[in-house]
């Protein structure tokens, strides 16, 4: 167990190191172009050279990389060109907003998916199973920006009961909670289908297993077989997959944040990409990859802990 955790941690560190090197190569290998991006395209050659000199960019590449990665590890990603504030400060507020949105979406998606997945997995091939499967295929086919358009048409322009943007100009206060409804709805609709199908597949597999058959044959009540024998084993695989999917959820969160102007991590990254705010892009990409790699780690360890066949082997 500890050995597995250690191995995974080493892999995690290797991936983070490679990603950071690739990012640094992509954005900072050409220091003259970097100076142009930071100082603006109308800055003079002398200004750029002076800036490079002052900020230690004339050091060798390897030394620059290690300075950068060392600072990044301490949370210092430099200063945003666009907002003239430290990147870490921007990241903190935006990540918090995204955590609120993402957490809500994850909780709701998982609850819906578990209920629907179990309901359809119990009776594989039944009309209920078929309709749940088709429903989840339909909802996963509508990309976030399309479903956002359709939902805005319905709830904002037709019924006029929800706001169409979520800027949260007064901060994340309860009075503005209705601004969260549409973004959450969009993300839940797009994501629950996949989770449901995972749960369904796992549940269906467990239902055909021998221990469930034995439990039924020895005369246990059906409800008890489902709750005590099937469910607990069926939920291991979907649980780990759902955590693994945080990566994909984050992708969707970015689109939704841009659509609804929600001041989160995704909007920060997107605007930085359009503006060419290099340090913000680097920081956001590093954070995103860290979240992805870390969730993979949690998922692997979780799977081992939850599955007794692996835990005791």
């Amino acid at each position, binding site marked *: 167990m500890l050995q597995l955790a250690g191995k995974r941690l080493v892999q995690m560190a290797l991936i983070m190191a490679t990603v950071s090197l690739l990012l640094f190569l992509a954005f900072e290998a050409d220091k003259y172009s970097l100076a142009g991006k930071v100082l603006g395209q109308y800055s003079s050659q002398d200004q750029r050279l002076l800036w490079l000199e002052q900020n230690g960019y004339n050091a060798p590449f390897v030394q620059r990389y290690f300075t950068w990665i060392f600072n990044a590890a301490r949370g210092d990603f430099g200063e945003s060109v666009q907002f003239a504030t430290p990147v870490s400060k921007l990241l903190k507020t935006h990540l918090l907003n995204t955590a609120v949105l993402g957490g809500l979406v994850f909780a709701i998606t998982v609850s819906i998916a578990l209920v629907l997945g179990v309901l359809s997995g119990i009776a594989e091939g039944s009309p209920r199973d078929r309709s749940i499967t088709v429903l989840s295929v339909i909802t996963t086919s*509508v990309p976030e920006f*399309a479903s956002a358009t359709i939902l805005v048409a319905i709830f904002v322009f037709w019924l006029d009961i929800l706001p169409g943007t979520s800027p949260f100009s007064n901060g994340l206060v309860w009075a503005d909670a209705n601004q969260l409804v549409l973004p959450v709805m969009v993300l839940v609709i797009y994501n629950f289908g996949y989770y449901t199908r995972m749960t369904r597949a796992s549940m269906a597999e467990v239902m055909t297993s021998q221990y469930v058959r034995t439990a039924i044959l020895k005369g246990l009540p059906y409800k008890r077989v489902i709750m005590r024998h099937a469910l607990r084993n069926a939920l291991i695989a979907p649980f780990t997959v759902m955590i693994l999917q945080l990566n994909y959820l984050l*992708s969707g969160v970015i689109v939704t944040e841009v659509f609804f102007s929600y001041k989160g991590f995704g909007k920060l990254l997107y605007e930085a990409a359009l503006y060419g705010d290099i340090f913000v892009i680097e920081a956001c990409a590093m954070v995103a990859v860290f979240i992805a790699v870390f969730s993979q780690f949690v998922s692997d360890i979780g799977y081992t802990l939850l599955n007794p066949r692996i835990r005791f082997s």
Partner: protein
Amino acid sequence: MTDTTAEQTNTPESSSGMQRFFKSFGLLRESWVGMIGLFLVLFWVSIAIFVDLLPLQDPLAQTRGVINFPMLSEDKHGVMHWMGTDDRGRDLLARLLHGSRVVLFWSTLATIVAYTVGMIMGVTAGYRGGWWDEIISFFGNVLLSFPQIVLLLVILTAFGPNSNIGIWMNSTLGLDKTIVSGALIIVAITFSTAPQVARIVRGIVLDLKTRDYIAAAEVRGEGPLWIMLVELLPNARGPLIVDACLRLGYVIITIALLGFLSLGLPPPDPDWGKMISDGRQWGYNGLNMMLWPALAISSLVLGLNLLADGLREISLRD
């Protein structure tokens, strides 16, 4: 993939390969979900191919004073706009239908490129094993650890049409702006999609590798390249066809998404994602302009997903 199956049909004993392939599409009739999917996909594909033959307005012609018209409205020149017009007075129906060609062309091309790269990576990692596997899988994991959009944003900011590379391709190589954007988008999508394909192919190949016919091929003295391309890949096609359908759907979403994020193909060519983001600036008046492309892309992707679902159902049956 197609040429390897074609190769198989040359030898007499497996001449039913292509027939079986078409027969499996015939089996699709048994799955009504798959049939609906096939219908939707064929609908958009035929529109994309034959759009020039349809009696449509010019998708690029801007008409003054005909801005943001609702659907079924007639302008002062007596021209009927079935779906209304956009914010530059262009006919939405024409743009929507012409847009299907743009979307399908670039997404199919991107999927083919990404699939080719992914299959080569996967089959090499799976069959060669050892260091090949370690290195390919590691780089796959590095790329997969980016959320897809983050990876696309990073690649298109660092190497996109406005970067030094994009400008060089445009000015020095003299390539058209659309081609430069399209090529760079394909590269970005390949980076994000090929590792996923490679992972699937690798899994299948690890299983196929232990079969007797591979051992027989090795004994016959066939080279590793021949075994990978002719023995392994054609036999992995079943799950890959299903996956390719799903993957094409994702790529379509991604390309439209890049358009929506204004990182896609340059204007004025109609692009469904760009149409949505253009309409967004107009609030209620732009709603009509946003809804049609949203429905179009949803129906196309839904078609592909249903088709994949039907194909999977059939392949599981026998």
